[in-house]
């Protein structure tokens, strides 16, 4: 009885100590990334019976932690740029037709380029207008990029597309027809 008790307690002790040894490994700095290569090398071989039993969950956790990392970084940047800049195509009727005025408004000083393409078709004829160039917008300033005026007879149709680029990418677009 005593022998068996001793044996049992010895086994328990051995199990506890091996679990305690395995615990740091379960931190699995080893598997979570290359930030801790030393820990990776220090990890016991996979054939270690203690590791096999101890932390089977950890490897599944680490990749999910890695996958979660880039999520919060990317979206806010995009939303930030879009929220700080707006562009519109203003349409005014004139005595001879329609005036198209592309405007931008930036909530901080911004430089960029714009392109405006207008196509108009009607009985009187068709018009294709393409405008583009650089612009500078001061903080809170509403900048008129250009004006285009053309005749609009009855039944005529038009479509205007404004694209604004800043920092090497498109930051705003507006389409009116």
């Amino acid at each position, binding site marked *: 009885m005593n022998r068996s008790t001793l044996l049992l307690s010895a086994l328990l002790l051995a199990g506890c100590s091996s679990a305690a040894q395995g615990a740091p490994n379960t931190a699995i700095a080893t598997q979570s990334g290359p930030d801790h290569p030393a820990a990776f090398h220090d990890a016991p071989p996979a054939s270690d019976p203690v590791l096999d039993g101890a932390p089977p969950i950890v490897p599944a956790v680490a990749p999910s932690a890695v996958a979660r990392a880039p999520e919060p970084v990317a979206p806010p940047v995009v939303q930030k740029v879009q929220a700080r800049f707006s562009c519109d195509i203003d349409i005014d009727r004139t*005595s001879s037709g329609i005036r198209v005025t592309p405007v931008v408004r930036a909530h901080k000083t911004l430089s960029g380029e714009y392109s405006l393409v207008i196509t108009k078709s009607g009985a*009187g004829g068709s018009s294709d207008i393409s*405008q583009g*160039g650089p612009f500078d917008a001061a903080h809170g300033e509403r900048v008129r990029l250009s*004006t285009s*005026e053309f*005749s609009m007879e009855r039944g005529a149709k038009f479509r205007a597309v404004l694209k604004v680029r800043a920092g090497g990418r498109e930051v705003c677009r507006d389409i009116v027809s």
Partner: protein
Amino acid sequence: MLNARLKLASLAMIAMVGAGAAEAQGRYDRYGYHAPKAAAVDVQQSGRGNGAAVSQDGPRNAAAIRQDGVANTGMINQTGAANDATIRQYGKNNDASISQVGDNNVACVVQVGRNLSAGVVQEGSGLSAGVVQTKKGSYAIPGRLCALDPANRGYWNRIGVKGY
């Protein structure tokens, strides 16, 4: 005679319709030439089957196309800054084009009649040229006269041509 009166009446109507639309263009005065202050396009067409195309790449370019009649086509290409181009065509099957590459150039093409074709190409800066074409012939005019409207009284005298 009646035909001439009709022509004059139509030109007068065109002048009324287009009045005040060309303020975005550059202008000459006693102090010299004043380039356009902002990018602007003005296309006015009446009649049927006319076609206009304008392409601008750069700041403060101004382009205007006025066409009255049938199947006239006008095309303006501007690359650079503060260029000023005007096309006016009255009649049928006329074709005009202006190409400007550079800065502060002034050009115009005026055509009255049928089946006329004219073009101006400017490559450089500070250039000025105008072409007026009728069935009577082609005439070169200085850029400072480009702002004048053929529909206005005295136009032909101002440019030194007996009329169309």
